[in-house]
């Protein structure tokens, strides 16, 4: 058991704990000794307060907007049945799985200087808010809609029979029953928007910065590692507090309700009002979720005097590239890194999951907590940590071609573990005992009994890893070398170049990344195990 724990443990210690601790030390004790005055001086600077305040209020506003906009959708998908419901429910998840860079590129296409509708909202708070709603809509739709389908519709009917109007019945009965789900979804959206990086960096322009963006600017552009480290401490403390509150919320408040019978749970809209509501909401979703992606594709095909594949061809032509290397190489790099990251995260994830699923109390729990820590950090912090810490080792890992896959694997590892552990736990212990009695060694038992059962879960974890790696931006931006860009990095660089060619290439590259990511996620959906599916 300890042997199995050794590899993932070493991996986490070297590539997660060590970098994060290094930053913490740098932030709190920049010159080797703890200097509170110095820390307070940095924290007292007006721009730090501004950044912290902006990070907070944009997250609050984004969360409130997302909940408001997605709540009617949660009703429609939780309560009503209509042709194409399953397909649309799956399609609504697409924005959530898209890389942030693709989302930012799509909104730049829709709202930016080359908007087909003449909108000029780039570098405004509105662009950021709309992109956040777009990105997180599915979180509220899935979580609240899922619970809404479980709330017994007779609760609302009972209220109606007792004299409550539709609105009163919703406010006094349904809403309180949905409140835990709404709180849970909102806290997830808040976490995502609080740590928003790519969207703010690309859509917000120079005047907007969250803590994440500011850490990146201080470290990578202004080269002030000390300020960046101090901001990281602030971010880590905020995230820890956030996760703590979230965990407390989830413990309390869950109201047990009887699961609705399927026939009563979802039904066809019957009144004109219900039909209008359904159609209106589907229209809203088409505009909010469909339009940005449609415009992204349209812009990638729109060339002088019509439509064509010119920008796609330009991606394969190094002569006309605005990057250091042919854009084609970015695609190759991304696929290669994603494959490597997948191998690393799945093999380490399987070992770790085995420890968590079958280990004794203390070890299992400690490992579980340790492995979910990367979820509570941000990609930017990981990248920053790699930059700061890995240069201090006897072997400078920063030049290793494995560095990017390792960073991606670190981000993906918690997802793999989460996909596999429930399946492992569901394996009947008596199967192991039966195998042992029949003379199988533990290794053989694992290969013949466990592996076939968990293979599907592992496959899902692999798909997640692949998709996460393809879209990873924050950490990669820190550690990428100029000659090995990934697709998100290439898109980011192309968007920073002037001229229609670079913009068109960015659109084309973002479209390709969108297609590859969606394909990976659709593939995951196909192998979904019968156990409860993750979001």
């Amino acid at each position, binding site marked *: 058991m300890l042997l199995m724990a050794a590899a993932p443990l070493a991996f986490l210690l070297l590539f997660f704990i060590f970098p994060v601790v290094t930053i913490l030390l740098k932030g709190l004790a920049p010159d080797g000794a703890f200097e509170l005055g110095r820390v307070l001086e940095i924290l007292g600077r007006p721009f730090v307060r501004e950044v912290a305040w902006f990070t907070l209020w944009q997250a609050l506003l984004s969360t409130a907007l997302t909940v408001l906009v997605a709540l009617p959708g949660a009703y429609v998908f939780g309560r009503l049945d209509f042709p194409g419901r399953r397909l649309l429910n799956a399609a609504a998840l697409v924005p959530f799985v898209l890389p942030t860079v693709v989302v930012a590129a799509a909104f730049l296409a829709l709202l930016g200087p080359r908007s087909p509708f003449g909108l000029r909202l780039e570098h405004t708070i509105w662009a950021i808010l709309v992109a956040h709603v777009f990105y997180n809509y599915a979180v509220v739709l899935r979580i609240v809609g899922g619970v809404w389908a479980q709330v*017994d519709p*007779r*609760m609302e*009917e*009972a*209220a*109606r*029979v*007792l*004299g*409550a*109007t539709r609105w*009163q*019945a919703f406010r*006094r*009965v349904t809403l*309180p*029953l949905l409140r835990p789900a709404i709180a849970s979804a909102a806290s997830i959206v808040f976490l995502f928007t609080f740590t928003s990086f790519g969207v703010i960096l690309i859509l917000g322009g120079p005047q907007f910065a969250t803590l994440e963006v500011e850490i990146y600017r201080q470290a990578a552009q202004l080269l002030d590692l000390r300020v960046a480290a101090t901001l990281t401490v602030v971010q880590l403390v905020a995230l820890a507090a956030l996760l703590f509150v979230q965990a407390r919320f989830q413990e309390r408040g869950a*109201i*047990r*309700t*009887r699961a609705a019978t399927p026939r009563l749970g979802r039904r*066809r809209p*019957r*009144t004109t009002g219900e039909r209008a509501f359904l159609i209106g909401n589907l229209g809203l979703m088409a505009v909010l979720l469909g339009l940005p992606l449609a415009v992204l594709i349209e812009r990638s095909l729109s060339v002088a005097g019509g439509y064509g594949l010119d920008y796609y061809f330009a991606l394969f032509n190094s002569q006309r590239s605005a990057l250091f290397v042919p854009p084609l190489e970015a695609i190759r790099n991304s696929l290669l890194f994603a494959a490597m990251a997948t191998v690393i995260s799945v093999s380490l994830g399987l070992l770790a999951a085995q420890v968590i699923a079958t280990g004794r109390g203390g070890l299992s729990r400690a490992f579980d907590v340790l492995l979910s820590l990367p979820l509570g950090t941000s990609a930017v912090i990981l990248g920053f940590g790699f930059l700061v810490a890995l240069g201090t080792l006897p072997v400078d890992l920063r030049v290793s071609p494995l560095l990017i896959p390792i960073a991606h694997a670190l981000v993906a590892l918690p997802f793999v573990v989460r996909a596999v552990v429930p399946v492992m736990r569901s394996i009947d212990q008596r199967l192991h005992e039966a195998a042992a009695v029949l003379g199988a060694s533990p290794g053989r038992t694992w290969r013949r009994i466990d592996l076939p059962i968990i293979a599907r879960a592992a496959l899902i974890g692999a798909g997640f890893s692949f998709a996460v790696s393809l879209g990873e931006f924050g950490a990669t931006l820190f550690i990428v070398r100029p000659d090995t860009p990934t697709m998100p990095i290439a898109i980011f660089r192309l968007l920073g170049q002037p001229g229609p060619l670079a913009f068109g290439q960015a659109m084309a590259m973002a479209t390709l990344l969108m297609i590859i990511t969606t394909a990976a996620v659709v593939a995951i959906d196909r192998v979904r195990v019968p156990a409860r599916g993750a979001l």
Partner: protein
Amino acid sequence: MTLKLSGVTVRFDSTVAVDRVDLVVREGERLSVLGPSGSGKSTLLRAICGLEPLAAGRVEWDDRDLEGMPVHRRRFGLMFQDYALFPHLTVEQNVRFGLESGNSPLPAADDRVRDVLELVGLRGYEKRLPAQLSGGEQQRVALARALAPRPRLLMLDEPLGALDRSLRRSLLDELADTFEGLGLAIIYVTHDQEEALAIGDRVSVMRGGRIETVLPPQDLWLRPPTEFVARFLGLTNIVDARVHGGRVTSALGTFELPAVDDDRPETKGLQSHRLLIRADAFRLQPDGPIIAVVRSATFRGDHTLLRVDIDEGDGAATLEVQADWSPAPRPGERLRLGIDPAGLVLLPLT
């Protein structure tokens, strides 16, 4: 104060759940609706409340069509199957819910909550949540909640369906007493014949969305009008028979039918029928025409229920016989039985 349904029809997509139902419930009357699950009983209640739109027909209260009147204005009480108590509200808040939605001022609401909780015997439970109550207690809260806003008609959907057998018995008596004291018009839906007969002034039997019959409980029990109703009431001794004049002939012999009205068309001439023999119509009779072999005997307290095999001529039949003589027969014993014609009911051929 009269509810009148005419031609009420409810459709779910392509299936017809309630099919052209006509019913009248008068002031203070208690109507039981009895039927197997899926017969449309619950849907009928929901249609009366306005929770299901009508595909055809009318629901009228005092000759006023309720079409278009929203659910919350109808002032009908509905006690849901499994109660549908609000899980996030206390007992008191659940009961008060219907008082706050209407127009009654708050002080009166306090009194009313206290009164109905008193009525169902739940004083002292005010601050509890539904999850902290037993099934029987939840049932009482649901009743109190439905009664609190003084509905002009109370509908109950399988109110005892979720409870275990012994609790059902005692709560059934309690419900009957409560209703007796209220003088309220009531529609009581159940699949349990005992409940339907105990509660209803009249009992309507539903089958496949249609009302098969509406009769006072005694008539329904003594003279079930169709084989479906008879079997649903647990009366299963039914054999083929022919009628000629006032006499009925079956494999069990030929009997006078005192209750048969010779003007009824189905008794005219030589016609095929079905004949119901009530289990308590059999008599132990040394020269009786029926030779029966006891297959099993179950002691039921005041009688022993026998399952006997009878040679019907063209094959064997198994009948239920209520033996109230002693000593009770044992399995394998041969008996000679006669029949009291008063326990025979002629049923139309289905």
